[in-house]
């Protein structure tokens, strides 16, 4: 039963963070929210008994992807579209 509650909590966290990815005005905030999505997802993967995938999601999804995105934002930060929301 604990497993189901952990899953529910993670799904809620993940979806709230997902909405934040879309609504954050600052790109760097959106990236931080995306990495929260990845962390919650990797906990869900542990609940689904996929430790290999969870490890990869934590290392690649939450870690590397965010670093890559942050590096790109740092380089193009001044270049925004006219309507950036």
């Amino acid at each position, binding site marked *: *039963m*604990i*497993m*189901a509650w952990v*899953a*529910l909590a*993670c*799904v809620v966290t*993940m*979806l709230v963070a*997902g*909405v934040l*990815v*879309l609504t954050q005005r600052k*790109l760097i905030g*959106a*990236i931080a929210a*995306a990495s929260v*999505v*990845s962390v919650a*997802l990797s906990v*869900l*993967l542990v609940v*689904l*008994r*996929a*430790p*290999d*995938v969870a490890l*990869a*999601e934590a290392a*690649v*999804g939450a870690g*590397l*992807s965010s670093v*890559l*995105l942050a*590096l*790109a*934002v740092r*380089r*193009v930060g001044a*270049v*925004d*579209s*006219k*309507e*950036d929301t």
Partner: protein
Amino acid sequence: METLSTATELEWLGWTFYAGSAGLVLLGCYALFAARHALRLLLGLFLLESGVNLFLVAVGFRPDAAAPILVGEQAGSMVDPLPQALILTAIVIGVGVLALGLALAVRVAKEEGTLDLAELGRRLAATHTPATAEETLPQSGRTETP
């Protein structure tokens, strides 16, 4: 390992996972339809891919089964290893595509001064002006916009 007592509980757990993956897919789709900034589109893709990954791993789940790693002389049932292997592959593919997309975005920002993909689409749709007609020749340089 904790077990699930009833079929209803399993069903609820299933809907939790389906809601999570479908929610991420829908959020990603929404970002792709509504956003215009290239990095926001790439973030939308990231959400969409995460949702797909969660769905595939959830497909391989079995109640009362262990992770697909043998520990000692264990004989119990294990969850499906195949979707997990597929998703490991998909995660790495996703990060490769993301990185290449970011590299392209950096170059576009440098050349065009905007990352608004709708605006870039308009510029692409504008017919070729005589000024750019000779650029396909190998010896001429690329024009830089300030």
